[in-house]
């Protein structure tokens, strides 16, 4: 198992290197000069040149690239071009917020999505199935910023239960949770929709299997068939979907972060893009790449817990 994990991480290195190279090139291909963005439009050429030199932007591309890759391999992601603080520190500052939000989204997604999916599969083509399917379609196609504003208007403005600006202090667990609920629900809505649909289709397939028919023929009670035979076998595709969307969720959280004004990786990357903060962009890509590799690994490991037939080698 440990060998398996190590292997996976080693395999991730070339992937990350490729991602880094692409990001490095794309960041420099987009027109726009970080120095000009930092200093504004009335800055003189002399001041711009000075800043470029200080930021190391006047070095040749190959030298910048080699410097960046060697630093990255040493685990040093460099400093933000704009603020001058270390990229790693900036990322670590906001990472807890993103993790909180993502976990909240996943929990809400699983807690509501799995039962709903099972229910709609069992009572296929009933009223409950239709209502849930339409609702989940709505959940998928509803823009996150719109649902966020609706949530704010109802629960923050009308009822006054939650704040609009949900960037709670991390050191205060009560406030942290209180500020997490609305954004978490907002992100969770999408996840509920995904999980419901995945659970439903996976369950429908399993329910058609021969062993289910056999179980029914044996005269087992419906509940036992459902929990012991159906759900357990339907779990793997559901876990895959959750794992797949976990990565997407980290990326998708950006709209939620902006409307609720929460710090987070999504907001960090938008800011870095607008300001042409190359080193920040590159650093964030490493972090994103790492998160995707990690979630894939966790997904793979979860298979083993849910299905003893899965072996790692």
């Amino acid at each position, binding site marked *: 198992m440990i060998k398996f994990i190590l292997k996976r991480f080693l395999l991730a290195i070339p992937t990350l290197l490729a991602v880094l190279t692409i990001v490095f090139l794309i960041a420099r291909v*987009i*027109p*726009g*000069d970080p120095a*000009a*963005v*930092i*200093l*504004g*439009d*009335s*800055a*003189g*050429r*002399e*001041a711009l*040149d*000075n800043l470029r030199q200080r930021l190391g932007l006047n070095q040749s591309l190959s030298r910048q690239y080699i410097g960046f890759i060697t630093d990255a391999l040493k685990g040093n992601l460099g400093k933000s071009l*704009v*603020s*001058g*603080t270390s990229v790693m520190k*900036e990322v670590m*500052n*906001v990472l807890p917020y993103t993790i909180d939000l993502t976990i909240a989204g996943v929990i809400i997604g699983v807690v509501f999505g799995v039962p709903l999916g099972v229910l709609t599969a069992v009572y296929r083509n009933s009223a409950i199935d239709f209502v849930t399917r339409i609702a989940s379609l709505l959940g998928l196609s509803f823009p996150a910023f719109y649902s966020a*504003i609706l949530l*704010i*208007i109802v629960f*923050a*403005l009308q009822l*006054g239960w939650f*704040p*609009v*600006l949900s*960037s709670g202090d991390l050191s205060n667990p009560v406030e942290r949770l209180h500020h997490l609920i609305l954004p978490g629900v907002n992100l969770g809505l999408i996840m509920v929709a995904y999980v419901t649909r995945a659970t439903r289709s996976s369950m429908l397939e399993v329910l058609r299997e021969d062993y289910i028919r056999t179980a029914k023929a044996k005269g087992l009670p419906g509940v036992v068939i459902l929990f012991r035979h159906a759900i357990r076998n339907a779990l793997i595709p559901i876990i895959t979907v959750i794992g797949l969307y976990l990565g997407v969720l980290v990326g998708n959280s950006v709209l939620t972060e*902006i*409307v*609720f*004004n929460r*710090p987070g990786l999504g*907001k*960090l990357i*938008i*800011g870095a893009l*607008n*300001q*042409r903060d190359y080193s920040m962009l590159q650093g964030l890509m490493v972090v994103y790449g790492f998160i995707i590799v990690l979630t894939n690994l966790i997904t793979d490991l979860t298979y083993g817990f849910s299905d003893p037939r899965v072996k790692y080698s």
Partner: protein
Amino acid sequence: MIIRQMRRWVLLLGVLVLLGASYEVKADVTLRIGMDSSDAGQLDPHLTSKTPDMALLQWIFNGLVRFKPGSMDPATMEPDLAEKWTSSSDGRTWTFTLRKGVKFHGSYGELTAEDIVFSLERSKNPKSSAFSSDFSEFKTIEALDPYTVRITLSSPVPFLLGLVSNYHGGMIVSKKAVEKLGENFKMGPIGSGPFQFEEYKSKQFVSLKAHKDYYRGTPKIDRVMYRYIPSASSRELAFRSGEIDLFYGDREQRWVERMRGQKDTIVDIFRPGEHRSLHLNTTMKPLDDVRVRRAIAHAIHRDEIVQFLGKDVAEAAYSIVPNGYLGQTTEGIPQYEYNPEKAKALLKEAGFPNGFSTKVMNTNLDPLLKPMQIIQEQLRKVGIQVELEVMEHATWHAQIRKNLSSMVHYGAARFPVADSYLTQFYHSKSIIGTPTAVTNFSHTRMADQEIDAARSEPNPKKQLELWKAAQQKIMAECTAIPVFELKQVWARKANLDYGHTLTGSLNLGPVISETTRFK
């Protein structure tokens, strides 16, 4: 029995709570502000020209002189760190006498002439300042004694007090602090203003606390919470739920009217307007023909644009120098009234009876895109097909500086003296693509002589004439078409009293001073 005992405990607890409450010091008065930005930029007054930074830094720093709070009229500037000043008759030597007992924030002690010299030298140095070119005529800056500073110029400048005011390079920093903090100065800027830097939380906020020893008196507000809230709707919702007291608004009539309809809300609309012009690239065909440029000018219907943007927030512009700038004038300056027939006739005369089509680059930011789309429609009516290439903002900034767009719809606000605008947009040294490039997108070069002469003209009357002559020449050649000005819009709770009337703020945000309070 048990109940009685419990009662006693509850009573005791109540008394303790009451005691605690009476011992508790009066709660801090906090002013919570919502700013349109995802983060701070450079918290160093000599480096930033961004609205979110400038609006904040003006509460931390002072200049030798200052604009009256709430005003941006250079004619009514008043003493600040300098008590008084004299200048030689040739305008080349200026002597400032400093106020005594001005304290820097924290433990950085008294402000003396040494700090002024250090600070102005820092602004002059391109390594530490984005405004070094403003100070190119500064020959020497000397401290004659701890309370006297003498500035010697190599040639007179258009408006010296502006350079030593509370704006851009004129902001005075603490020498000791800069030397001690070095690169970290912008993470904890030290000035002498009413509020001192307290904390910066990346992507979230900057908090300031009252400078108790502020020389004009201790501020009535204890703390300023300056939050970065990039989404306009989040700012508005947070304001409505009472989480912020003052915020950066939308420069749109509908928004202004909606906010005015809310209870306990005041909308502030103030100068400087962002002056918008359509710069015509005179090196590109067919805009190299003055008749074509004039045709474009006659095709633009300003009233329609202003009506779209709203009468409170926008104002038609008829001069290439923004309204209210020293030296701005429309008297005796050629004008191009809205007249589509005349435009068509001019196009015919220039050999384009059926009009022409041209590529124009534009940013995707709404405030800059919508007016350009109206202009596009207006030009279409006289036969000019504008193909808008809409792109991301920073990309657009880079592309238009590579001489790739036939027209550039650009907005700016500068120091309110005609020279700043004329030099940056219409002097040949500022032409894009040159080593000294700034923002001369049209390649205008016919008024260099007047602009240069006005810069070093010590006689104010003659200076005004030279600026007028420059504007006449440029408008006659029609290399840029002034279109409109868009003012600053903020909203605040009705009980927030600035302590002055807000009509203008060169630092693009309300002045929060020692007299600002909650009523």
